[in-house]
């Protein structure tokens, strides 16, 4: 919903831009274990999501490697809290052959302004279009 859903908007735009048989697009609203289970067995994976950072700059696009994410330090109060990094580390130990050789995480800074709508705000719409261009180039490189 709203800018929080920019990842889904980017995916849908990419689907239109990249009609290739060797690409698969998935819209997911999950994290942690389920997210990692969804990427197992693929060769290369790009994850796109909105984020709210302490040094928030609305519309900023950033790229992360999984190594830049910190594993959970202690048991978590709910399955939500087994974060992506911990879940990925778990699978690296248990199913190393299924881990994609490339995992990149692209994020767009948003302001979670708590307004419900299905469309994006203008700055995030612009950022989404820019991210689509970046990813198209990256995919063509790989």
């Amino acid at each position, binding site marked *: 919903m709203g800018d929080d859903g920019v990842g889904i908007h980017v995916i849908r735009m990419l689907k239109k831009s990249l009609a290739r048989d060797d690409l698969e697009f998935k819209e997911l609203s999950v994290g942690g274990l389920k997210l990692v289970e969804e990427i197992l067995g693929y060769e290369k994976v790009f994850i796109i999501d909105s984020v709210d950072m302490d040094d928030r700059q609305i519309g900023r696009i950033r790229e992360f490697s999984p190594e830049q994410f910190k594993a959970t330090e202690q048991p978590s109060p709910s*399955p939500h809290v087994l*974060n992506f990094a911990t879940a990925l580390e778990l699978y690296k130990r*248990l*199913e190393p052959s299924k881990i994609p050789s490339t995992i990149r995480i692209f994020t767009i800074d948003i302001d979670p302004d708590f307004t419900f709508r299905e469309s994006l705000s203008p700055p995030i719409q612009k950022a989404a279009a820019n991210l689509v261009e970046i990813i198209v180039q990256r995919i063509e490189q790989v």
Partner: protein
Amino acid sequence: MKTVTINPVTRLEGHGKISIFLNDEGNVENAYFQVPELRGFEKFCEGRPVEEMPDITSRICGVCPEAHHTASTKALDAVFHVDPPPAAKKLRELLYSAFFVADHTTHFYVLSGPDFIIGPTAPKAERNILSVISKVGLEVGSSVIKHRSDALDVIAMIGGKRIHPSFGVPGGVSKAITESERAKIETIAESEVEFAKFTLSIFDKIVLGNKDYVNLILSDTYATETYYMGTVDDQNRVNFYDGKIRVVDPDGNEFEKYPAGDYQQHISEHVEPYTYLKYPYLKKVGWKGLVGGKNSGVYRATPLARLNVAEGMATPIAQAEYKRMCDTLGKKPIHSTLATHWARLVELMYAAERMLELSRDPDITNPTVRIIPTEVPDEGIGAVEAPRGTLIHHYKTDEQGMLKGVNLIVATVNNHAAISMSIKQAAEGLIKNGEVSDGILNMVEMAFRAYDPCYACATHTLPGQMPLDLKIYNKQRIVTHNLRRP
């Protein structure tokens, strides 16, 4: 374009916040648990076609979309006044049993496991699933992942997808399963039954075999006397998919039993200004604050609550395990919050056995899986037992089937008051004379974690986990300890 603005909105995930206040002697004076909850879904669904609800509400939560999808589908049956054919009900229950297997497995090994396998007071850097795997071995770890994954494969076979299944429709399900799929499910279910037995044996060895852990489970620090709620079949046995809601009092006597559709006659919600979560309570007893006992309407709806309201389990091995648990812990109802972990494993056993039973049901491949609704839609209520408690979806529509009103009582909310009380009780029992260590704080959190609480939708904050903030204040209301998981 229609714009719906809701203020305040707590759809995005927030902080789970525990505040513990100490007196002059450094003992616990009070403790509060606060959390923002997602309630926006109820509002923005208004005006949408009701048949979209199973797909929309399954996005409420990345952990239990199957629970919302199933409760929503049952609500649609009621809205359209249609009774699905037997094969459709069995397929829904089969998928739902597979979901319980995956969910309870994850909770035991990944979330509560570190507390017991690594130890409640172990250094926090070691209390995680990675250390659990190091301790129990890669082979066990691989088996956990395999059985979780197999259960998700069953969900995909029946529901179309491993995540966010999309097969529930008013009057049934969208597709039948083939004999080949049934045979695969049967093979998986056989393995899940063996895995559940293995998991119970691990619990026996690591938890019940350790006198300190048993004493911890039975200690007053983790005992909270409340009413209990859960769904039972016509023989008062646990049922996740269908039945009547039964409530027992703190002495174990039946207090009330009603169809889920009557929930408004039995449940009310109390509101406090310091938390977005409401406090549901039993209407006939009334809200008396965050206190337990027979005169307080606080109730629990958890795996332990389900076993407390039931008179048994509907499958043989689970029944034997249920009896063993009740015999070991003494008279029912069992008030020890930490016994919820054991109850969860009894339920894991039941879910696996039920999967197997349904996979062998001669009717399960019957191609008649839907009755097309012909009635004018109006209002309907659907309920299931989610892993964390009773889940209710209530929809009202116009005659075109467009939503006019939505009310969701999500599983964790049922337990809000009891979670708050359990945290306070654990803090009172563990924090003495101002002495607070990381291990003690973790043991306070264990009271919270036993409920397997679930507040937010899919995670979107970096590094991708629900923040939890635990603060301890001295008499001058100055923070003396702050444990914050970023």
